[in-house]
């Protein structure tokens, strides 16, 4: 089969799965859903693997989608190392998570069960479209569709008000990002009259050597603007400051959703975007710097909040924001392959953490408060071990995969020549690594060690079913040995996103090891659980309220908008618009019913008389006019 057809198949499998489940799934027996839902993702995975083994690359155009003057959108898929890498993450980790959901969602009734897998397949399709797009229009379509499926899945339990509100919040935040993306595309189209990546990059960046060239901030006004607008999209999708507030609330969705969408794939789309647009960001130095600064600040910011959270999924959500901050930092300083390697390792260990947490939540009858767990080590041994593997990887302890990726980012930030700003960012990243060790240790210690909490909802939690345990174990193995993939992954990616010119990796390794050892020490220290925040109550309050971001947004945006909407409803809609419509209707009814009904007698002779009189009048009028003239 040709590579061109294979690339299309990657997209078609999840689309077909979603269509089958949406059309007939809820009426078909449950095993159909169980087979189709995860099966199509694995088929996509096979197609991706075949493409990879074929060493396929190219910009495949299937047909012209829209053509109107200079606006020419081909239906094209871009297959290169970056998109194959992303497809591997989406279909591989995604396949494991969708398989895991077979067990996690078992208590749903038939229609809801099929609905869940329909949404999941829609999501996988949209995300694959996003990463395979070869033009901005497809990118925006995929970008908006992952936002839609995220909305649908956060609000999956639509009977719960909090879930519906969280879904709406996520959607609104994402739409802010979508608007940024679309405006950015407008700017690029206005400047270069093209929407395909290849053309825009060729025109925007005159150097044919896209990898390291074009570092001179020359005449890059439109590019700078477009890069900033695209960054708005990336920030909203990846839950970076200041558009981050939706991600912790998104934990209202089922846990596999949090693992797939809000940890492993969708929220990393911002990193993918910056990586894919690297020829633009290489020219637009200010926007590029903004990426790194936003990433570093978010990393620290989110890590501090995670210290005081008590909901296990919220801790993981803030930790996700923090780790994506690292990725932004990496791509922001030009260390693209390091950023993408961290994306991969984060997909491994964060999906693992979410799924292991899902095992616990499943066993605890949907209790998510860590303070009510305690002592799960004795009852859920395997889950505890896998969670520990994920935690160590998140902290960055040798030899787990998180060590290699985080070390690479921090090391490269430390050794970037001649830029003191980056050194500050490195310091922030370093501090974040320490805090990461602390909150992760707290999370593991609180949930799995110690005595069972008196409030624990289940005395003897049952072990998770095999279909849930196997994907978790596979990810645990990957998170353990994944570090071995560092060098091949990086060299695989470098052909797509370019390599960085500076490489004093000896410093990097030393710095990295020191960082991680310090973090590990804190991790161990956290196990004693000294409530340090009790000594500084104001800090505790500040962190528990997440730096009051929700309150500020509420006061600045939500309440005024509520007020405007209420005013418009009470004082504009009702008395002006409604009245105009209702009175127009009333007038029409009066003229039609009251005034004209008497004209329609139903007697044939009346109509004929009117007709004759009319003819006589017209004919007579004509004769008279003739006579007079």
């Amino acid at each position, binding site marked *: 089969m040709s590579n061109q057809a294979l690339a299309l198949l990657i997209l078609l499998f999840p689309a077909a799965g979603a269509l089958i489940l949406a059309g007939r799934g809820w009426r078909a027996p449950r095993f159909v859903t169980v087979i189709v839902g995860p099966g199509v993702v694995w088929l996509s995975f096979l197609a991706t693997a075949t493409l990879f083994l074929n060493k396929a690359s190219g910009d495949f155009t299937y047909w012209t989608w829209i053509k109107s003057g200079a606006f020419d959108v081909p239906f094209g898929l871009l297959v290169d190392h970056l998109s194959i890498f992303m497809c591997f993450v989406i279909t591989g980790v995604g396949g494991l998570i969708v398989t895991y959901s077979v067990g996690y969602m078992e208590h749903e009734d038939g229609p809801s069960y099929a609905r869940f897998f329909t949404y999941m397949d829609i999501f996988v399709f949209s995300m694959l479209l996003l990463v395979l797009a070869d033009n901005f229009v497809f990118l925006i379509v995929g970008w908006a569709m992952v936002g839609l499926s995220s909305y649908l899945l956060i609000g999956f339990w639509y009977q719960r008000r909090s879930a519906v509100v969280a879904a709406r919040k996520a959607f609104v935040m994402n739409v802010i990002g979508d608007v940024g993306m679309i405006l950015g595309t407008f700017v690029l189209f206005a400047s270069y009259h093209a929407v395909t990546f290849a053309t825009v990059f060729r025109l925007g960046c005159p150097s044919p050597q896209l990898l390291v060239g074009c570092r001179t901030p020359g005449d890059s006004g439109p590019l700078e603007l477009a890069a900033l607008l695209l960054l708005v999209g990336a920030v909203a999708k990846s839950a970076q400051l200041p558009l981050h507030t939706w991600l912790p609330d998104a934990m209202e969705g089922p846990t596999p959703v949090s693992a797939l969408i809000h940890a492993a794939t969708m929220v990393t789309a911002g990193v993918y975007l910056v990586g894919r647009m690297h020829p633009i960001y290489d020219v637009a130095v200010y926007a590029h710097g903004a990426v790194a600064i936003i990433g570093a600040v978010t990393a620290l910011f989110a890590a501090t909040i995670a210290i005081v959270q008590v909901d296990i999924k919220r801790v993981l959500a803030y930790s996700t924001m923090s780790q994506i901050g690292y990725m932004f930092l990496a791509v922001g300083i030009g260390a693209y392959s390091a950023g993408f390697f961290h994306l991969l390792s984060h997909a491994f260990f964060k999906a693992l953490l979410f799924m292991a947490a899902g095992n616990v939540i499943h066993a605890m009858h949907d209790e998510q408060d860590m303070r009510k767990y305690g002592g799960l080590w004795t009852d859920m041994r395997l889950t505890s071990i896998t969670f520990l593997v994920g935690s160590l990887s998140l902290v960055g302890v040798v030899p787990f995969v998180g060590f290699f990726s985080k070390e690479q980012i921090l090391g490269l930030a430390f050794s970037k020549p001649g830029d003191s700003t980056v050194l500050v960012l490195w310091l922030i990243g370093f501090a974040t690594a320490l805090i990461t060790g602390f909150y992760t240790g707290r999370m593991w210690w609180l949930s799995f060690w110690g005595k069972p909490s008196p409030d624990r909802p289940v005395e003897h939690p049952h072990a998770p079913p095999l279909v849930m345990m196997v994907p978790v174990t596979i990810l645990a193995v990957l998170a353990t040995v994944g570090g071995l993939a560092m060098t091949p992954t990086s060299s695989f990616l470098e052909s797509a996103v370019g390599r960085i010119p500076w490489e004093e990796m000896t410093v990097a390794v030393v710095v990295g090891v020191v960082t991680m050892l310090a973090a590990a020490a804190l991790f161990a220290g956290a196990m004693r659980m000294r409530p340090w925040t009790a000594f500084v109550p104001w800090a505790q309050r500040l962190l528990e309220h997440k730096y009051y971001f929700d309150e500020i947004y509420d006061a600045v945006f939500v309440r005024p908008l509520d007020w405007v909407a209420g005013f418009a409803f009470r004082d504009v809609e009702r008395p002006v618009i409604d009245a105009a419509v209702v009175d127009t209707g009333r007038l029409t009814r009066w003229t039609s019913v009251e005034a*004209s009904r008497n004209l*329609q*007698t*139903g007697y*044939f002779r009346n109509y*004929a008389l009117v007709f004759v009189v009319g003819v006589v009048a017209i004919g007579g009028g004509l004769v008279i006019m003739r006579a007079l003239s």
Partner: protein
Amino acid sequence: MGTLDIGGSQLDATWFLLLSAVLFSLGAAGVLVRRNPLVILISIELMLNAGNLALVTFSRQLQNIEGQLFALMSMTVAAAEAVVGLAILVDIFRVRDAEDVDDLSQLKG
């Protein structure tokens, strides 16, 4: 106004047009005042034939054959119209006993 040669004698065209007008008015009055649907149909035929007479008269007067052709066509149409009208009437008589068109006023507002 010219005169027409009818069977050797000369007659003014005005007489024919006057006859046509009288016939037309009779037909129109019949349509308006009569209540039996069949008589109304006959009155309509009368109006049509008055029109035909006027057409033929002008045709002769202006020595233009098209008017006579048009009269033939008008007769054809009249036949078709009579068929449709009678068919409707038969259908109405099937479902109800209506001797008076005023009984058929269900569609009043």
